[in-house]
């Protein structure tokens, strides 16, 4: 598996990131080195090993379905957001 410009473009799209033109070559080289290194895992035999890993084997804890909320937290988040009004975050127009 080699990392090339096409793959980097795909990853940028998935990541909502844009890598600067001047940094692309170095970025590709570094990603390629890391991806090549982690391929060492293929030399380990893991046949029959469960593919689902969880730190704690018991199921996720359940609780009664009672609403818990702290309106102060919501108010503070909105107050400190880059742009907000009433109970809304404001973003550029998304419908023409």
């Amino acid at each position, binding site marked *: *598996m080699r*990392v090339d410009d096409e*793959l*980097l473009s*795909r*990853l*940028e799209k*998935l*990541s*909502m*990131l*844009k*890598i600067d033109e001047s*940094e692309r070559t170095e*970025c590709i080289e*570094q*990603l390629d*080195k*890391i*991806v090549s*290194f*982690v*391929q*060492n*895992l*293929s030399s*380990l035999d*893991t046949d029959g*090993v*469960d*593919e*689902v*890993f*969880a*730190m*704690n084997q018991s199921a*996720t*804890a359940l*609780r009664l379905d009672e609403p818990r909320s*702290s309106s*102060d*937290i919501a108010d*503070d*988040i909105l107050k*400190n*957001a*880059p*742009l907000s009004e009433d109970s809304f*975050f404001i*973003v*550029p127009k*998304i419908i023409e």
Partner: protein
Amino acid sequence: MKLREALKLDSSGIAKLKDELRAKVDNSLLNAFISLDEAGDGVPIAIKDNIQVKGWSVTAGSKILQGYISPYNATVIDKLKGAGLCAFGRTNMDEFAMGSTTESSYYGKTLNPHDNSCVPGGSSGGSAAAVASGEAIAALGSDTGGSIRQPAAYCGIVGMKPTYGRVSRYGLGAYASSLDQIGPMTQDVEDAALLYDIISGYDQNDSTSADVEYESVVDKLDGNRVLNIGITPSHLENAAPQIQKAYKKAVKALKDAGHNIVECTLLDPKYDISAYYITATAEATTNLARYDGVRYGRRAESDTLEQLYINSRSEGFGDEVKRRILLGNFVLSSGYYDAYYIKAQKVRRVIKDEYAKLFEKVDLILSPVAPTTAPKFGALSDPLQMYLSDIYTIGVNLAGLPAISLPVNKDEDTLPIGLQLIAAPYDEQTLFDGALSLERALETL
């Protein structure tokens, strides 16, 4: 002043201590602190910049969180408060805890107090440098792949990573959720046990918090217990000569203290690195998707919503964070998911099972923390080289184990060398008992 001494101070004594700390930080060139925020009364504890303190600008060392104000306290902060301690100062860190040197912080580098041309380690480099220089009596850090233990080793202090699930992650800025743990960074083992007791315990606000009965450790500390301690000679090949020398010294100290030394083998740690960087980047890419410039932190103004996302993230994240987001999306994307992500999860299970088997015959494992002493600034600028330097710390995170790093020796340039003890899950008592024994044995060596 040790933490346990500070806890005996009356309010005027605490006020005086805080004045002294403020003066030290003001006159310091280390850049261990981003800012000396305060939150209430109590014995002052320095807090890594990824732990939420209500009203503080908590930024995970990142440009993208500039302007964010934390609207609530992390559980560990409430626990500090409940025990008569308080958050005192935000410490510097690698951006989003992704790094081993604290060089990737938006706030510039932190200097190692023992040699200002060397890194303090990372990602909790600010916390480690603060405790080592006396600018803090104790600190909290977070450890995803060694980020408490490695800077502790580089700065000559004690750093402890609890069992996964022991300490609530509620209010910890998430990097890799199945690996992250908050832990104490202190001047000695007893202080670490004390602070660990204060922050530990089940928390219903963290679904991965372990719902097990909690028993305090510090009141039962026993440095005289005889333990079976595993050593891993084959692992040492990757370590510099001065680290190997420190390892031998620690083994001798443990033997002299009456412990049984048992030779063990572990899987080649190159597999730990791969399983770790696949798992951690996959989780990081998911956790960092929330930083979009819309709800909190810094926004890059743009004409369209998509450009707003892309510009906010491209301007707000540093190079290492971007690299890990790209890698995470690679290992999770269709076509590569099975070969990378699923494979890494299988290897993770193999590593966890291997440790479990080892702990059937030993109580603790003695291991290096890092292959060298603190490197010079810039020495780990190649990302893969930096990842390889995590070789001794990340197995512990992959398997969810508790471990403690403590100073053992100094190299010829007087840089500290730390080694770690590793215990079975939830066996923090044995971990602290063994560490106390080693600390005392080294004093008399």
